């Protein structure tokens, strides 16, 4: 078993309350499924669309993230899978794909120190 991070991007921003409710329910269903199969290492959290970016030795603080809405990381979670292919397969169930978003699947690097 290896660990992978899912980075979720491009959350839809304008929802009707009913749409939002429905969308959340699909997240719950997906989480339940992953949880039952033992894939969730750390469920992570969704992230707000605002924040600050700290950069360089001078530690310059800017409003951010500056990227376009579709590029903003909207949340993360840590999952366990056999390999990258398996992790990608798991990510295909993510509800964000149904609303124009994307999942970036990244193996967690283990440092041997």
């Amino acid at each position, binding site marked *: 078993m290896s660990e992978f991070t899912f980075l979720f991007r491009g959350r839809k921003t304008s929802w009707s309350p009913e749409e939002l*409710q429905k969308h959340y329910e699909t997240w719950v269903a997906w989480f339940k499924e992953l*949880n039952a199969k033992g894939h969730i290492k750390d469920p*992570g*959290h969704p992230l707000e669309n605002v924040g600050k970016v700290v950069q360089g030795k001078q530690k310059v603080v800017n409003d951010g993230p500056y990227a376009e809405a579709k590029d903003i990381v909207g949340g993360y979670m840590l999952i366990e899978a056999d390999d990258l292919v398996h992790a990608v397969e798991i990510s295909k169930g993510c509800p964000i794909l149904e609303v124009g978003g994307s999942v970036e699947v990244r193996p967690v690097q283990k440092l041997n120190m």
Partner: protein
Amino acid sequence: MVAALTRVFGVHNLALAEDVVQEAFCRALEVWRVRGAPQNPSAWLMATAKNCALDALRRERTARTFAPELGRLLQTEWTVAPLVEELFGTNAIKDDQLRMMFSCCHPRLSEEAQVALILHILCGFSVDEIASAFVSSHAAIEKRIARAKKALEKSKRLFDVAIAAEFTARLPAVHRALYLLFNEGYHGASPEAAVRVELCREAMRLTAMLLEHPLGTTSATYALAALMCLNASRLPARVDAAGNLSSLFDQDRSQWDQELVSEGLKLLELSATGSELTGYHIEAAIASIHACALRTEGTDWETIVSLYDTLMAIRPSPIVALNRAIAVAQNEGPERGLEEIRSITERDRLAAYPFYSAALGELEFRRGRRETAREHFRAALALARNPMERRFLDQRVSACEG
């Protein structure tokens, strides 16, 4: 509400669940005092409890573990809010009550503790109300409930009503607890009549809930429900207009609740499936014969005696034997009844039961031995557990002297 919240927090966090309900009530009172009560207070309260639960989950998320089967989903903002929403849905709440009911009937708990816990958690009875229902002290009940809760918290997870084998295995214990709850209300020793009817009603409500679950609709559950309906149909006549206890023989039968009678008969019919024959079946059958008799004299005592014979075979007890003897007396005269009473094994176990002496008194009275009858009624009077019983027996003593 506590049942739903315990589902959310896990049974080991029972105290937290109760705190959250408390908090919801406090918030409600605060707001209602300023703005007046809303149109639908229970919905308002539910929504507030939901919010309090969410707050508690967020606040305690790092310090505690919650319901193990939901743990992951409650830790993250991805799912916590919609999940709490889901768990507070109407159907979910019903499931939670059922789950809690089965959890309360844990084999490690005594039957008394089970009933007390059900009353406290599922019926929302205060410690004082339970103490008065059981004729016990506040401190004793508080201790009993606290100990039971601790035992429940140790069990780590709530009972899973979805596992058929476990459901079926624990169902008899749940039946038993509901039966005791009902009887406590019906024959119980409480000095306060009002509380008692409430106990019967709660037992009936929980039994009805059992009948809504596919695994709960067994012939024994139907029989138990029938028994409750048929006995409860007589409740309006148990106390006469003057507030005195009225025996089955003297009750104004026009006051019997005919709706409950027909409901009970319907349930009894439904219970007649399969090969299982329980004490509940027999008791319900006996109650149905009473319910269908317009007058005491018109009662089919012969059938009742034979039903008591069957009951003695599957669930013998001195009280059943005593009731059987009374039925024999109705059928074959007081002498035969007294003979039957004298032949009850373990008769000494009835010594503290006021209606044992009262039955002896009644039969002696009927065969004209008033002096002996009076002694028996006096003995019963000394054992009476509440003012109503005392008044009833007092009158019998006077009747012997008159």
